[in-house]
């Protein structure tokens, strides 16, 4: 194999991109897809199969036909029943990518008992994948005593990850081993999958991770599936094989975020304190949800927030549909739920005409108070100080009151733009979720060599130059070495110990701790033992959250990071098109290793969160992604991004660093929607928020 010489690419990572790897004799692989979302597969008949091209079906799988290690059974290639439109049923492999694509597209897939796609009515079926219920106090009794009640349904759309590079994998044989290259958050799972599918020993498989780029937690298990496809094709063709989805294929057929529909009825008592909440959380998981159980816990915790609800009933349901299986998408569905719960709290504040920040803060649980999940808070949340700081920096109270007044006094569109400002607060619980061992065990190996060079091997190591530098500095500091003598190996299953998925800021929260621990262990042995000294440091995610029939267990806030967001919005009075004019974020996430880099990361994530609030949405019709959806799915343009002010609360040097990546997704949408609602003078309850509906409704009246 020969990786092409990397282009000189400024400060970008040196790790190869999948599409940049060239190999002599490489064959290209395309998926043949099911034309309907149900029925039994009878056979796949290619229109033609020229010399040098191969059709690979489930019959060619010698080992396991399903992805290993997940809660649900996902076939590598469907062989019997079909679950979703576009499900891979076969592969075509051959030397010319255009011919391969054409052969895959024109192959006839014969199904028995399938209805035509037009008969699919929307996405959601009533097939329940997972369901949870939490009842605390006496919600029914409490509703009869509530002085203030609100009741609404909030919905969020299906989002596309829009990876830096579409999903793919490359497989080739190296003597008696198969080597896989893929951009994955979970190399150990790729290894396990390929060895299971080929029916070979794990030692016969090597996985080298390629450059990940932006993934929004969408590259956890799906790269394992594509790695299996590439491996099957490489074996069938006896040549290196690469599958790389086109951008449009990736949009239509790779996992998407789950769609959330959240109904909440909430009541305050006569003193305007939280009394009761009843919520039903419904998620459209697509054909299957490998993380459905984790998502429901996350959702349950997010809808409750850190508020004092003496009486609650929360039901969370994951439902199946004919769309592609769902992925984790930056926060396991928490974003849609925080949007609903944040909007609900703002709605309550508005109803009682109280400033939203002070209302939300006075409803928070205090130290030692019991959360509805049953846990008592060990320390008070930092949200009150976050609220105070952000209110000062954004001038929230004054703007909120004056925009309200100005809107009420408006007489015509000529009065100028409508303005609104909204606040939302949220957290990023680190306790994902599953107590399943492969998902929660992490490992790192550090070796101090004879030349006093320190080598770090870990699947969760950062891949960008900035965070890599931060890791090197940290290791060098502990061992008293020059930074240049520290090197971090590229993720490779031959060098790094098996680990859980790099999800939810785990390179900061777990792998960072492992690094500190391994370096400290080496420092202790350094003058006692001969070099080289190798230390393997392992850890499990502490206190996984679970939601069983007994309720939610675990401590949702023990390692949480916290944030508040203010968004200010202006509406064009004629078109009612919204334009955000400012975003403020205040964050408490423990010790921030590099405030400058963290600020930039938060700003980039806030842009994405704004995109989800304002326009991004994958739409389905007849069980399949709508024709125009791919072309109309537009990421936020830099021109539309307002100034984003980021403020980190400094908890001191001793605080452990915690994750920050999901926080903007958890609090920007609700803040944006409450700002847009204030400006429009009507409650908005869906993402992306449709402010432009407003004049249309007026016309209709």
């Amino acid at each position, binding site marked *: 194999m020969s990786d*092409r*010489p*990397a*282009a*000189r*690419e*400024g*400060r*970008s*990572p040196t790790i190869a*991109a999948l*599409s*940049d790897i*060239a190999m002599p004799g490489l064959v290209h692989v395309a998926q043949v897809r099911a034309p309907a979302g149900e029925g039994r597969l009878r056979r796949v008949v290619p229109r033609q199969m020229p010399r040098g091209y191969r059709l690979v079906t489930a019959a060619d799988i010698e080992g396991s036909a399903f992805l290993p290690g997940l809660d649900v059974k996902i076939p590598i290639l469907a062989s019997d029943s079909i679950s979703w439109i576009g499900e891979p049923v076969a592969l075509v492999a051959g030397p010319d990518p255009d011919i391969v694509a054409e052969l895959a597209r024109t192959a006839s897939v014969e199904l028995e008992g399938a209805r035509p796609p037009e008969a699919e009515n929307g996405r959601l079926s009533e097939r329940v994948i997972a369901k949870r219920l939490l009842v605390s106090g006496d919600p029914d009794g409490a509703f009869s005593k509530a002085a203030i009640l609100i009741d609404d349904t909030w919905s969020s759309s299906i989002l596309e990850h*829009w990876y*830096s*590079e*579409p999903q793919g994998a490359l497989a080739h044989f190296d003597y008696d081993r198969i080597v896989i290259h893929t951009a994955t958050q979970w190399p150990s799972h790729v290894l396990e999958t390929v060895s299971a599918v080929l029916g070979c020993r794990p030692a016969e498989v090597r996985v080298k991770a390629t*450059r*990940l*780029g*932006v993934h929004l937690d969408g590259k956890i298990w799906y790269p394992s599936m594509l790695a299996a496809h590439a491996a099957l094709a490489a074996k069938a063709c006896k040549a290196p094989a690469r599958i790389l989805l*086109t*951008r449009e294929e990736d949009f239509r057929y790779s996992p998407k975020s789950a769609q959330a529909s959240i109904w909440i009825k909430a009541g305050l008592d006569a003193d305007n304190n939280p009394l009761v909440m009843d919520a039903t959380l419904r998620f459209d998981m697509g054909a299957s949800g490998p993380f459905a159980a984790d998502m429901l816990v996350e959702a349950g915790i997010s809808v409750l927030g850190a508020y004092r609800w003496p009486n609650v009933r929360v039901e969370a349901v994951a439902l199946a549909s004919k769309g592609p299986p769902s992925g984790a998408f930056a926060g396991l569905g928490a974003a849609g739920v925080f949007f609903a719960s944040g909007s609900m709290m703002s709605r309550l504040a508005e109803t009682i005409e109280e400033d939203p920040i002070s209302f939300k803060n006075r409803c928070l649980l205090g130290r030692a108070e019991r959360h509805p999940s049953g846990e008592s808070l060990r320390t008070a949340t930092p949200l009150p100080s976050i609220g105070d700081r952000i209110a000062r920096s954004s001038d929230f109270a004054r703007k909120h009151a004056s925009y309200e007044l100005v809107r009420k006094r408006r007489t015509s569109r000529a009065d100028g733009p409508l303005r609104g400002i909204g606040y939302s607060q949220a957290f990023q619980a680190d306790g994902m979720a599953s107590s399943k061992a492969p998902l929660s065990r992490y490992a790192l190996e550090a070796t101090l060599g004879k030349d006093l060079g320190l080598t770090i091997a870990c699947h969760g190591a950062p*891949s*960008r*130059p*900035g965070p890599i530098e931060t890791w090197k500095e940290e290791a060098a500091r502990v061992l008293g070495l020059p930074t240049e003598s520290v090197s971090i190996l590229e993720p490779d299953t031959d060098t790094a110990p098996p680990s859980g998925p790099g999800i939810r800021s785990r390179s900061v929260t777990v792998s960072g701790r492992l690094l500190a621990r391994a370096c400290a262990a080496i420092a202790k042995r350094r003058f006692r033992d001969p070099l080289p000294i190798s230390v393997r440091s392992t850890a499990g995610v502490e206190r996984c959250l679970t939601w069983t029939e007994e309720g939610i267990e675990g401590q949702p806030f023990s390692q949480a990071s916290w944030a508040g967001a203010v968004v200010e919005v202006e509406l064009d009075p004629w078109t009612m098109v919204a334009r955000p004019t400012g975003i403020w974020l205040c964050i408490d996430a423990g010790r921030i290793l590099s405030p*400058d*880099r963290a600020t*930039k990361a938060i*700003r*980039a994530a806030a*842009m*994405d969160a704004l995109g989800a609030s304002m326009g991004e949405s994958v739409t389905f019709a007849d069980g399949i992604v709508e024709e125009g959806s791919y072309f109309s799915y537009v*990421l936020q*343009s*830099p*021109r539309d*991004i307002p*100034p*984003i002010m980021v403020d980190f609360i400094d908890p001191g040097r001793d605080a452990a660093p915690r994750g920050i990546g999901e926080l903007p997704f958890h609090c920007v949408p609700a803040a944006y929607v409450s700002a847009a609602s204030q400006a429009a003078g009507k409650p908005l309850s869906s993402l992306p928020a449709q402010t432009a509906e407003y004049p249309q409704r007026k016309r209709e009246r």
Partner: protein
Amino acid sequence: MTITFILNGEDVSVRATSGDRLVDVLREDFGLIAAKADCRKGTCGKCLVLVDGRLVPSCMIPAFKVRGKEVVTFEGFVQTVEYEDIRQGVEEAGLETCGFCESGLLLALGSLLDSSARPSREEVLEAISSVQCRCTDPETTIAAALAAADHRARRTYRRDRQ
């Protein structure tokens, strides 16, 4: 057909069909992989190159269209003094990317500074809007562009005085 053109300052020839896109020819035939073939519909900006000094998405250009023209890819651009200004600006601003659209982004900045020595914020935003980048924040890119403009101004001032 055989197409002859200037690629990163060198006369080159390549055999291509009428359907071959410039981005594929650059990547497959010349191994110039900084430009990525992503959306293939002219919207993502990952395949941007300069053709006769104009910034164009190479996925939208049939290879034969560059016959007799001068093509500069990111690999060629990094050899120029103009890139040095951009590099310094990027480093000063701490602009870090995941690498997938970096070539398009920096070529866009280079092209902007060619047309406007002291670009305004709006001009920078306009220029970087040609690249759909999900991992950089516009403020940092603006800071990089303005710092690069400073470096370029200083360098040309020094050169003109000599």
